[in-house]
């Protein structure tokens, strides 16, 4: 998840996420602390939903005594299947957590068949 490449730069980190579904509404939460709304990009390309964000770790220059926060960029790509409605995706960013709400298409929802 965190490794330096040959040029000494930190690679893009994969943020921690959680996915749940409740009554046809899929909620995806992605933890991206320090990423402002302006530095966040949510894209849908075909079946791929990609979420990427950048942050600046420290505004000031100085000497690090402890350095555990390393990721300067986050990126996560989800694959959407046909049951998810592409037009109706709601995104909100609060306290460093991005919440995506997606709807399952009506046609894909389980249907009850009444016995005549």
């Amino acid at each position: 998840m965190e490794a330096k490449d040959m040029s000494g730069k930190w690679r893009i980190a994969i943020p921690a996420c959680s996915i749940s579904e409740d009554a046809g509404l899929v909620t995806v939460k992605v933890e991206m602390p320090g990423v402002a709304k302006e530095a966040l990009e949510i894209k849908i390309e075909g079946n791929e939903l990609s979420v990427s964000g950048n942050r600046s770790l420290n505004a000031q220059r100085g000497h690090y005594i402890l350095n555990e926060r390393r990721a300067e960029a986050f990126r996560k790509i989800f694959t959407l299947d046909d049951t998810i409605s592409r037009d109706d995706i709601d995104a909100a960013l609060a306290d460093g957590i991005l919440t995506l709400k997606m709807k399952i298409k009506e046609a894909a929802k389980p249907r009850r068949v009444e016995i005549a």
Partner: protein
Amino acid sequence: MDLVKWDNPAPKDLWEAFDGLRGELDRALDPFRIPSAAGLLDRTTAPAVDVLETKDEYVVMADLPGVDKRDLEVSVTGSLLSIRGDKKGERDSEKRKIFRKETWVGSFSRTIDLPAQIDTGKITAELKDGVLAVRIAKREEAKTKLIAITTE
């Protein structure tokens, strides 16, 4: 329903693979290693923290996504800075199906021993976009002073 995590492609060159191996060995052999707060397998319930020393102050930054200001407590005792809090998640409902859970909820605490020359009267804490920034000023006598050189 299928939400599949994107899979990292294999390393393109051989050196990259060696680089990862070396890092892994370094981590395994380092007795003072501090685990990262993000990630599924190396997850701990302690937030990742940076401590930065600048000319006039110490800056402590902690990644606290999803933590409310009301659930967070920052205190200083002597030279010990303590950050404790509670990260609250969604209320579980019986109907809710969970597909993936890499994030954690619960209480956490982190204590950082700062150098003794801090001015406990001059501390500010700010929480923005899930990152806590605590600024602690250095005492006047601990600041670097430039001495003018005179020539005869």
